[in-house]
């Protein structure tokens, strides 16, 4: 099997990946909170249309009506476009179970133009404004409750993601900016259900964002969190590191002194 409890590399990888993710998380939080203009100008829409025809229409159709290989974009809204494009999920690198995030192929203004154009195709959720993402007055405890009720079942209580059926994954939230998370909630990308503002109001979303920020800070008062993966890594740690050390000592005790 791929996972051997005897293999120290497994643990090292888990810790390594967790620490790496943290670093990315800090960087992303820093860059993601810049306010954005919401009202799109005509030239922006034009630019977006040109970009769309060039980069997206082969799958989603010349008028965004969709095709056999890409869903319709009419009514998906600017939030969905910004989520998919800014996280690099679109354009799709390769067809698969779900789009993988990667560095974005479009810069910020190009992404905004694309979003503005798609928003003109039909009404859909808009990109959240800076006020909507302002979590200064958010209720952290409520955020925790809402997170555990609505998000933890897929993304886990620590926000590090989890498995879905048929090879799908709920991605880790630890590297995502509040804006991207907000957009995902209102747009419901891939298999994620939609949590629209009419059902989960803005204040509730702000509370959730505040709680995710707390998770991203990765405070572990009791010591290294082992990737916050729960009993699986704890068990591996005991078998590999814990018993490893004690067996080492036992061998030392049993060995004849020189």
């Amino acid at each position: 099997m791929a996972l051997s409890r005897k293999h120290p590399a497994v643990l090292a990888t888990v810790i390594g990946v967790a620490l790496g993710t943290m670093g990315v998380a800090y960087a992303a939080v820093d860059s993601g909170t810049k306010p954005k203009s919401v009202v799109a100008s005509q030239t922006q829409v034009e630019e977006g249309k040109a970009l769309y025809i060039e980069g997206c229409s082969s799958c989603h159709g010349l008028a965004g009506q969709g095709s056999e290989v890409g869903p319709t974009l009419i009514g998906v809204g600017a939030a969905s476009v910004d989520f998919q494009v800014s996280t690099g999920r679109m354009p799709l690198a390769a067809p698969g179970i779900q789009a993988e995030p990667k560095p974005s192929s479009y810069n910020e203004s190009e992404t905004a133009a694309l979003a503005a154009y798609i928003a003109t195709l039909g009404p859909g959720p808009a990109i959240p404004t800076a006020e909507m993402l302002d979590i200064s007055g958010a209720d952290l405890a409520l955020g925790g409750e809402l997170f555990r009720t609505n998000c933890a079942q897929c993304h886990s209580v620590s926000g590090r993601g989890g498995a879905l059926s048929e090879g799908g994954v709920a991605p880790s939230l630890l590297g995502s900016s509040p804006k991207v998370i907000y957009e995902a909630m209102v747009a419901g990308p891939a298999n994620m259900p939609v949590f629209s503002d009419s059902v989960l109001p803005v204040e509730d979303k702000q509370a959730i964002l505040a709680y995710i920020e707390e998770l991203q800070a990765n405070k572990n008062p009791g010591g290294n969190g082992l990737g916050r993966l729960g009993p699986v890594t704890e068990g591996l740690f005991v078998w590999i590191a814990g018993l490893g050390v004690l067996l080492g000592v036992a061998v030392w005790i049993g060995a004849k002194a020189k």
Partner: protein
Amino acid sequence: MSTKPNAAVDAKEKSVGGSVAGYVDDRLASANFTKRLLNKVFPDHWSFMLGEVALYSFIVLLLSGVYLTLWFKPSMVEVIYNGSYVPLKGVKMSEAFASTLDISFDVRGGLLMRQIHHWAALFFIAAMSVHVGRIFFTGAFRKPREINWVIGTLLLVLGVLEGFAGYSLPDDLLSGTGLRIAQGIVQALPFVGTYLAMFLFGGEFPGTDFIPRLYSIHILLIPGILLGLITVHLIMVFYQKHTQFPGEGRTESNVVGYRLFPIYVAKAGGFFFIVFGVITLIAALVTINGIWLYGPYTPSQVTAGSQPDWYIGFLDGAVRIMPNWETNLLGYTISWNLIVPALVIPGIMFTALGLYPWIESWVTGDKKEHHLLDRPRNAPVRTGLGVMAISFYLMLWISGGNDIIATAFNLSINQITWFLRIALFVVPLIAFKVTKRICLGLQRRDHEKLLHGYETGQILRLPHGEFIEIHKPISDKEKAVILSKKDYSPLALEALSDANGVRNPNGGKAKIRARMSNWYYGENIARPSAAELEAAAHHAEHELHEAQKHMQQITH
């Protein structure tokens, strides 16, 4: 010798130590017992310390557990949390969870004790598991130690139950989910399940009774039984004397090693501090069960990656990969999908484990006492069976983490589950075959070493052009170990009928037994006879002599 006799010190010892010992002996006649105790010889081997790790973890568990009881409130009464962990301030939760948060954030050293307790629990069961492995693979369970083997099996089962009870007490989202699953399994039992679940939980799940009930079981009932059984376990080791590995001077009727006092008082006593120290250091530096992340339990929430502690993982794994069989019989529901993985499989596993000494001795017909340990390679079928059992357990254990594996390695849960459903049966069989082959291969190598010595790596060219490698006979130390292999022979079939041709009424049973015994021993490589050894020694001497002769010629 490094001990420096010092008259002054001796005199002082006599006056203090002697008078205390005298006082006690006047009342208990303890001198004879004390003398035997202090002089008791134990053999030295690293693998003999595995049980000690379990014992010391248990002591750490008792100490840290007592400390936790001073603050923990085993109550499911709902309270509003107002402690110092901000993200949960104002949240409704049970008193059990709130007091666990207090221990973690508002009692200095409380988090340390909690983590020591939890890590020690993981160590306790892990150490017991490898200890069982050591006993099994070296055949230390054989007569006269079968009773202690059964006690050990009970300790393992009780340890797992005790661990699960402890895992469930804080009433966080993870442990509550675990309890929900346990309750669902109890409820699904045929005939009594519904009633049993109602009685255990004081009604429906979760109710408000279970945690206080579990608490008294966790801190009184099971630890009491564990303590009693551990005491008997140790007394029996002491009384029957420890087994030892074969080697120079070691026989079935002696023990070669060091005396309890002072060597093992220092070594084993020191090892207690090592185990305690390592657990404490891990508890100081690595988080275990950060309950504040999970939040309080409520039956309408769940987290992705809901896993039990590692020792329940095999059970959870069995439940995960079981096909969804359920029968409706005359209006009653039989949940095979729970009864089989949660009851039948562990039932068979632990029963087979507990009965193994008798199974083996029935198959082999071996009723002798054994104090010299087997080298695992010299019992290929036993070793194979052990590895087979471990790989079966491992497959179940991996199944318990199928979702974590899916995310860590980008695989599909459905595919992993199907793979494991098949691997559960295939991998153990392969493991058995491969292990047995390896053991027999090692036996053959031992045989070669005895007869032809070991390869020195020195190549010699003989006058007629042939190259030979010089072999040297192995040391007495190694010989003593290799020759410790006993010559077993399969049970013969001759008992089937007596001299007059009258069939033995137990003929059928005898036949099965003979066949199994043949399977058990059949392929073992026989120990070389004395004559073979002598011939080999002679040959080696000759070869060496030849070689030296040529060397001299070359140097001339």
